[in-house]
């Protein structure tokens, strides 16, 4: 378990992390979200013992990171932002170095190195110098290093940043495969990633915790939650929009550039059946008709930019 207790970090007059508290349980994959400069990396640096908190504490599996840093660090695998490594070493030499530091020796070390090379698919580059690798491979070396000792706690700072879609998919599969009974914290600003791999999302901005919940619950706070989208063939979207807007249960209608009409419900109403009935009445040739779950990106903007919701409201809602 990771326990973060009233954690703050000041750099001079600047407050990077402001009284942050939350806990992460084994089996959870926590998506750590926030705009650039929100304090995500600073928080992760304090969890991993790189930075000393200005106040507050971090406990990893019961060990206080400030009081017993080495014990805590043994339990953690960490991929720092940008996946730094020793550029002049080959991938193999680097992993051997990490294995030694992690107390792995002999056959056990060789087996673990072979296993992570397999897991993150580094076969082609094992004897290349790290500084000559592409960004994608560099990131994978960073991941390999982090998971080498099969840590109980995995802290990944933007693990898919700069990867192509295939590589992103592989990294997500890797995270999913390790999620069982581990504690994983992933920072990202790619929201689809949170929906794909995280069991819980924490949103911070300006160092403060703004929201904490399951990705689908957060998405449900979107004004698009339970909205109905449809496209109709051979009819101007504006005509469809005007007809739907006339329904009592519909609060607002939006038309996308692609001609898709989205009806937003008034006050938690279920409008799917109303819209469907309307479509049948007019005999529209429906190409698609579906209920939206809510859009995380819209919630993210709403929360981090402070639109509509003040912090108090968010906490009430949570």
């Amino acid at each position, binding site marked *: 378990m990771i326990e973060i207790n009233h954690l703050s970090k000041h750099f001079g007059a600047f407050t990077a992390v402001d009284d942050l508290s939350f806990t992460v349980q084994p089996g959870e994959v926590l998506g750590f979200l926030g705009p650039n400069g929100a304090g995500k990396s600073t928080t992760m640096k304090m969890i991993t013992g790189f930075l000393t908190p200005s106040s507050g504490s971090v406990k990893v599996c019961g060990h206080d990171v400030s009081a017993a840093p080495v014990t805590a660090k043994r339990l953690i695998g960490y991929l720092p932002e940008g996946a*730094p*490594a020793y550029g002049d070493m080959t991938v193999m030499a680097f992993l051997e170095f990490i294995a030694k*530091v992690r*107390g792995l020796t002999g056959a056990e070390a060789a087996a673990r190195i072979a296993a992570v090379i397999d897991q993150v698919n580094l076969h082609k580059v094992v004897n290349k110098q790290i500084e000559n690798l592409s960004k994608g491979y560099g990131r994978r070396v960073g991941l390999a*290093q982090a998971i080498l000792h099969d840590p109980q706690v995995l802290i990944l700072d933007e693990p898919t940043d700069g990867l192509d879609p295939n590589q992103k998919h592989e990294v997500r599969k890797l995270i999913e495969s390790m999620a069982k009974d581990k504690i994983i914290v992933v920072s990202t600003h790619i929201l689809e990633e949170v929906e794909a791999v995280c069991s819980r999302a924490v949103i911070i901005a300006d160092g403060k915790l703004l929201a904490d919940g399951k990705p689908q619950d957060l998405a449900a706070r979107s004004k698009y939650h339970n909205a109905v989208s449809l496209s109709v063939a051979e009819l101007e979207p504006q005509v469809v929009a005007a007809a739907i807007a006339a329904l009592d249960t519909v609060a607002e209608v939006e038309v996308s550039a692609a001609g898709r009409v989205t009806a937003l419900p008034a006050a938690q109403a279920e409008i799917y059946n109303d819209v469907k009935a309307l479509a049948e009445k007019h005999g529209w040739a429906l190409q698609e008709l579906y209920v939206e779950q809510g859009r995380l990106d819209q919630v993210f903007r709403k929360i981090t930019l402070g639109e509509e919701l003040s912090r108090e409201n968010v906490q009430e809602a949570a």
Partner: protein
Amino acid sequence: MNPSALQMTGIILRRELASYFATPLAYVFIIIFLALAGVFTFYMGNFFERGQADLLPFFSFHPWLYLFLVPAIAMRLWAEERKSGSIELLLTLPITMWQAVLGKFLAAWLFCGLALSLTFPMWITVAWLGEPDHGAIAAGYLGSWLMAGGFLAIGSCMSAVTKNQVIAFIVGLVVCFLFLLSGFPIVMDAFSSWAPSVLVEAVASLSFMTHFEALSKGVIDLRDVLYFLAVMAAWLYANTLIVEMKKAD
């Protein structure tokens, strides 16, 4: 099994030492060191003309050789880690700050020792030409290596101050220069006009040159040995503080 503190220092040391040889740096350094040591000894030190079977002309130029070459070895120790960001990786591994600082320093010191030991043909030359005092030569080598350690500890500390290796080199060189000549007018004049005589004497007693002189002549005075060890300990302690302070920048 988790590695002991000593084993962990050794693991850091080996990685660091290997990284010297991963680039041409090690070979360039060793070749230049050997060439300059030879040039200084034979041309400027009048090795043959003196007609004495000792290595005094060889050792007497070491402070000047080290002044330029040791900061060049030390400049990358921390500046490079901070520049590339690998410091974050290193310091989130289950090691202590002292293990990291000491492992890196010892790697550089061993490397200097290797370069120094490759000057062994000098020793063979004097042994072949005459009958030198081998004990005195061994003491000279020990003194030279200790002095290199002193310079290295300063350089390592200065390397932690900046991300820029060139700045680390220049600042390291200047601080080494001050320590080298702290007993001489060039440095003393800056103090003697205003500082109390106790301080002036204290500064004067810090001179690398004075402490190395006796050792280079073959006199092992425990005080000189302790002096260099204390210099290393003090600068490495400062090194840990500076890394701690600067690592997040």
